[in-house]
């Protein structure tokens, strides 16, 4: 490790020292914008996602409250939902005493809930297939909820309402499970054959998303949320400090909820066409590209009519979750979470990503460019992307000077920071990342040993 790397890590550590009763989050965010060392990442993410307060003396109380609150949610919404729904139905009946809506209401709502659950189930089973982590048992199952086994609930329902044509969704889900259990390449235990007090990591994610959908009825669950919660849970659950890892589920839930509060508009269909929905966000991104790199914009957006919906929609909606391998993504998210304007940070990264493949895009035809944009090359150095994105955000070139230069000059000015600072920062980041990569390799290897 170079002196610079050590300096930076020491700096981050010093900001988090126990004697600092109030953590200077402003300085910490700045220090973390090129990446966070593995050992400090879970703590830093909790701070950046406003789960932990800056005042360290309050941590104990806050954590105890939040974690107890989450345990209550699990108990009330999953372990004994009947009681709660009965209370709810009772309230309805007292208002409308005429009919007896009790049975119908609860059946319909359970049907709707199960549809959401089926959707979640389908998506979490295939979470980050490049690593085995989500297919492994957690050391910290939520015992009472594990006995319930949400996935089983869907297949059980299928048997109960077999005559109902609306139960087709469940049919499909159970047939998928069968297929998986038969596939030799995917050593996944079905929900049925597993120890009732064990849980796989994807089942923990399933529970969190299901609770989120119940607590946030205006959004429920939309495909893609799984890609946002997955990496956060991975970081918390693989924390070497067991005291923290033990509470990965509750802590992830609240951090995810906080992250969603910032990006949820992108997931709400009703807002798609409004001034806060995803469409305006991606259209603005293309406007930004037009200013930043007119030649590239002209080529892909005007000549080839590549619309932002074709690629940057997913980039921004999923905060790049599907564009990079998990270790790369986690490092990028260090910068994204550390930033106080996360949307702007993600967009800057997207601009740099385009710039990194600029020459190929300018030479490529529509088909080649679509493939490039939808399957971003994995040989691009994430450390470089982060440094350039940082520079782009902190010394934005004025629009006027950008326009007065020729297209290629513009991109040089906007994107190329001093090569010296670039190399130094690149060193630092790759040091951080080696840790993450090693840990992931460990998981993969363990899996190989088992099989």
């Amino acid at each position: 490790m170079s002196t610079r790397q050590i300096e930076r890590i020491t700096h981050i550590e010093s900001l988090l020292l126990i004697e600092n009763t109030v953590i200077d989050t402003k300085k910490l965010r700045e220090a973390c914008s090129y990446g966070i060392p593995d050992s400090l990442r879970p703590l830093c993410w909790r701070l950046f996602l406003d789960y932990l307060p800056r005042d360290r003396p309050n941590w104990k109380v806050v954590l105890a409250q939040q974690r107890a609150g989450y345990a209550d949610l699990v108990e009330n919404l999953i372990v004994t939902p009947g009681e709660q729904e009965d209370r709810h139905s009772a309230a309805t009946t007292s208002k409308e005493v005429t009919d007896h809506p009790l049975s119908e209401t609860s059946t319909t709502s359970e049907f709707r809930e199960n549809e959401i659950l089926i959707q979640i189930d389908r998506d979490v089973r295939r979470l980050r297939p490049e690593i085995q982590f989500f297919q492994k048992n957690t050391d910290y199952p939520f015992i009472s909820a594990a006995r319930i086994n949400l996935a089983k609930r869907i297949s059980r329902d299928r048997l109960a309402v077999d005559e109902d044509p609306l139960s087709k969704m469940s049919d499909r889900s159970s047939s998928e499970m069968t297929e998986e259990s038969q596939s030799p390449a995917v050593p996944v235990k079905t929900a049925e054959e597993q120890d009732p007090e064990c849980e796989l990591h994807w089942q923990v994610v399933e529970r969190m998303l299901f609770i989120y959908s119940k607590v946030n009825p205006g959004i429920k669950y939309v495909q893609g949320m799984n890609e946002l919660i997955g990496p956060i849970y991975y970081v918390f659950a693989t924390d070497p400090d067991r005291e923290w890892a033990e509470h990965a589920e509750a802590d992830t839930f609240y951090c995810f909820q906080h992250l969603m509060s910032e990006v949820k508009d992108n997931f709400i269909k009703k807002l798609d066409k409004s001034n806060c929905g995803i469409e305006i966000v991606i259209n603005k991104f293309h406007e930004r590209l037009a200013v930043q790199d007119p030649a590239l914009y002209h080529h892909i957006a005007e000549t080839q009519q590549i619309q932002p919906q074709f690629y940057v929609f997913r980039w921004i909606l999923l905060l790049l979750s599907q564009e990079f391998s998990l270790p790369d993504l986690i490092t990028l998210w260090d910068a994204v979470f550390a930033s106080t304007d996360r949307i702007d940070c993600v967009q800057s990264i997207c601009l740099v990503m385009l710039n990194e493949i600029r020459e190929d895009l300018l030479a490529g035809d529509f088909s080649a460019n679509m493939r490039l944009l939808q399957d971003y090359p994995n040989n691009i150095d994430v450390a470089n992307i982060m440094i350039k994105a940082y520079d782009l955000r902190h010394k934005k070139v004025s629009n006027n000077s950008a326009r007065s230069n020729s297209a290629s000059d513009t991109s040089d000015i906007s994107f190329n920071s001093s090569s010296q600072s670039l190399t130094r920062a690149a060193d630092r980041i790759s040091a951080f990342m080696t840790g993450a990569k090693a840990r992931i390799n460990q998981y993969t290897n363990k899996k190989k040993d088992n099989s």
Partner: protein
Amino acid sequence: MEAGTSDSPVFKVVLLGEGAVGKSSILLRYIENKFNNKHLSTTQASFATRKLTVNGKTVELNIWDTAGQEKYHSLGPIYYRGSQGAMLIYDITDTRSFERIKNWVRELQEVLKGTATLLVVGNKVDLDATRQIQRETAEEYAKSVGALYAECSAKENIDIDALFETITKAMMAKASEVSTLNRGASLRRSTSRRTIQVSDDTDTEAAPKKKCC
């Protein structure tokens, strides 16, 4: 429509249908001859190209595989606008997915006004034992809306290539009809062998690249 990498005419085809009916699986089977039980859910339409030769003529297909979940339906028009073909895919074991394609057909008829070839596709024939939609019912429906009909299984690789051949033949026939009509209507164009939908290699260099949508 975008001029392709080669001199073959290019047709744009969009795959539509409810979530999990197998749109991505059909495409994966067609392009890479693979099947993946754990295929990622599609949140953003994905793009693929493939060349095929029909009746001795090579064409290139630009295929858009769209997202199935309700939330992402508002993005549909971006992909089907300017398409020469649309596959309306449902799962033969799922009544609701069949009802959903009726909505898509109505929408396409309103917007594309008969300019595109529609192919109704019943996927998952490997699950025939739990079939909910009878072939005759679906065929009758397809006929009633002027669409073609086919069944397939992406999992067992049954009739996947045939789907794309069927729709391509129909698109080519439609393109030459349009071309004939145009030649009749406009004498100026009579010397050009270009058609509305099919771009000619001699023009791709000189003319600005054609739009995809």
